[in-house]
């Protein structure tokens, strides 16, 4: 039934050490101490089903996410040299018909209990329930349910939730006084959830959805050789006869139609959401707060640009590395304790320390608003106040949380 799961073993410790040392008057901890370095083991259950995208430019790379984890492992290893720690990354590729429990057992059987997970929400819950002794880092699933009624004490959410992304965009649109929205959502269940997040965001921040549209996914290929002729006729009609609005907000998580909207709408209105101005956890154009260094490092290693999923995996791995150096330990129990501790935070090129919400284990983070070329703005926006931290104006805040961690 389930295919044997291939293992890809990434062991960077010594190789990186040697690479950095080459041609340099090298000096660090004595070799003997290195040999006994504590090993921090990080697993990665990685979704490898094909991901679709309208634009050729957005065609997902084979190693999406994984490259971020690899870079963070290198970064952790550089730090580890000074802490007598080394990091090991083990990837388990995962497809739709694979058994989550088997994939998990592959890792735990090899002593990997700190595990990055990029799988859909239902599989994530199976993983979390299968072994309470592991700590999972959700780097892919944006579902609010995972942070609400279905939250789990052994799941850290590094990926921002749909509501955080929607709130980030909403704050900017409201700040811009573009408060009359048309909401165009796709026909997939994820699109319905994302549309819910935009409805909630509109209500919270004082925008108004003047009309909703549904774009039905009738299947078929995305961009094709002559497809451009059809979309030119199809999209204006789809957006014809709308009430007066400032912006068209698209909720299309599967890349079915949103990228066709800009320049093809009936009215001359900007597009935001899943196309146009997009709320993202990372963008290869982000250069603020030292971002250039990370982008350079990533491109040098992966020979491509750094995506959101790469950043989410990088951040999760760095959280483990940071906890290992703060606790001076490679023991997964100590690392878990450190990560869940009140003082824990991680730097991820967002201008402030990212910390965890202790009510649902969601990583607080500023959200970048990208036009695909540059960062237009970073939310939270000025003026949206909060009694604890402005970052908690994004997503589900403590008083409204339905999460009971268990």
């Amino acid at each position: 039934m389930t295919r044997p799961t291939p293992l890809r073993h990434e062991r960077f410790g010594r190789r990186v050490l040697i690479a950095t040392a080459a041609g340099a008057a090298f000096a660090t901890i004595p070799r003997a101490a290195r040999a006994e370095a504590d090993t921090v083991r990080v697993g990665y259950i990685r979704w490898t089903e094909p991901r679709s995208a309208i634009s050729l430019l957005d065609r997902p790379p084979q190693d999406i996410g994984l490259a971020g984890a690899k870079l963070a492992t290198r970064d952790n290893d550089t730090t580890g040299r000074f802490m007598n720690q080394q990091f090991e990354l083990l990837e388990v590729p995962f497809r739709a018909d694979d058994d989550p429990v088997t994939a998990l057992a592959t890792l735990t059987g090899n002593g990997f209990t700190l595990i990055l997970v990029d799988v859909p929400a239902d599989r994530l819950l199976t993983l979390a329930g299968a072994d309470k002794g592991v700590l999972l880092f959700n780097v892919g699933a944006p579902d609010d349910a995972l942070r609400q009624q279905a939250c789990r004490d052994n799941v850290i959410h590094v990926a921002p939730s749909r509501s955080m992304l929607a709130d980030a965009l909403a704050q900017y649109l409201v700040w811009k006084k573009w408060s009359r929205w048309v909401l165009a959502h796709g026909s997939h269940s994820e699109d319905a959830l994302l549309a819910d997040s935009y409805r909630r965001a509109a209500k919270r921040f004082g925008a108004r959805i003047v009309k909703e549209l549904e774009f039905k996914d009738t299947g078929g290929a995305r961009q094709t050789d002559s497809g451009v002729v059809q979309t030119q006729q199809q999209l204006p009609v789809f957006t014809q006869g709308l009430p007066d609005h400032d912006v068209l907000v698209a909720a299309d998580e599967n890349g079915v139609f949103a990228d066709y909207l800009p320049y093809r709408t009936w009215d001359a209105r900007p597009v935001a959401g899943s196309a146009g101005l997009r709320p993202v956890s990372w963008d290869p154009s982000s250069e603020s707060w030292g971002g250039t260094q990370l982008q350079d490092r990533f491109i040098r290693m992966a020979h491509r640009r750094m995506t959101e999923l790469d950043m989410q995996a990088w951040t999760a791995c760095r959280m483990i590395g940071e906890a290992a150096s703060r606790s001076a330990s490679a023991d997964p129990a100590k690392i878990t304790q450190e990560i869940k501790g009140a003082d824990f935070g991680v730097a991820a090129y967002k201008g402030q320390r990212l910390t965890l919400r202790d009510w649902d284990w969601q990583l607080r983070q500023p959200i970048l608003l990208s036009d695909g070329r540059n960062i237009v703005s970073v939310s939270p926006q000025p003026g949206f106040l909060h009694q604890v931290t402005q970052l908690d104006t994004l997503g589900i805040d403590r008083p409204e949380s339905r999460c009971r961690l268990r």
Partner: protein
Amino acid sequence: MRRRSHAWQFAGLLLATMSSPASADTAYVTNERDNTMSVVDLEQMKTVKTVSVGQRPRGITMTSDFSKILVCASDDDTIQVIDADTLRIVGNLPSGPDPETFVLHVSGNPLYVSNEDDNIVTVIDVPARKVIAQIPTGVEPEGMAVSPDGQTIVNTSETTNMAHFLDYKSRKMVAGVLVDARPRGAMFKHDGSEVWVSAELGGTVSVIDPAQHVVTHRISFDVQGLRAETIQPVGIQFNRDDSTAFVALGPANRVAVIDTKNYKVKKYLLVGQRVWQMAFTPDQKYLLTTNRLSNDISVIDVASLNVVKSIQVGRLPWGVVVSPK
């Protein structure tokens, strides 16, 4: 007795103050966004000249005789040598890739450069314009400091979150001290008894005993009406008798004035936006701060602890150095 470390330009401090009045001081400011260096006349308190330099100029310092200005042109992967009289670029130092900042040894040579993209510190013989060594360090090396006795070099690494201690003679890493998130600046007291390290995202300054390599104090900041996350310490300076420390707090737009006896903040001075690096005038009458987002430098009167002037420079000013000439 040797007196200076990081802002090594004060090596010639006593001589400088005796030989020339403060009013003749000139400040040089790197403008990261403009690829220029502003020349500020501190008598007139205004920018008198703007000089084109390499791409993305950041770290800036001067040779001990104040004849040359050294500028990290980060995106050109070089350090430019600028003649202080003619303001012409007279040479380049082989800095290694993406030099961000540097410190000159107290003896005037060599120069220690942090190569942010490559996790190394490059050691350069300045007169010979040659790389002597490259020392591996943590991820994204940043701040550099030399102990007053010249025996220890400290380098901070932003993503490793450490202050690394390098031995001058052996050029070996002797210790790594974990500090708070994203360490930026490092500065020795003149008496060498402490090295202070700022942590931009941690929001703290760690006081490190350089003999024991341990953090002995951790200084936090609290500005009324400001959220903790907007307080991001970067530059650090000590006055001559080490009694007072000044810490630039980034987007808090303030410089904290700290009593070094009890590590308490005695005053917060409101300066320009996203205050970054600082430098004293040779007589220590004034402390200058670069303010990234307001494109100016603030002039702090050190005796009265008042901000007396802001002077327009170029866009995204990064570093500042003051010459008594």
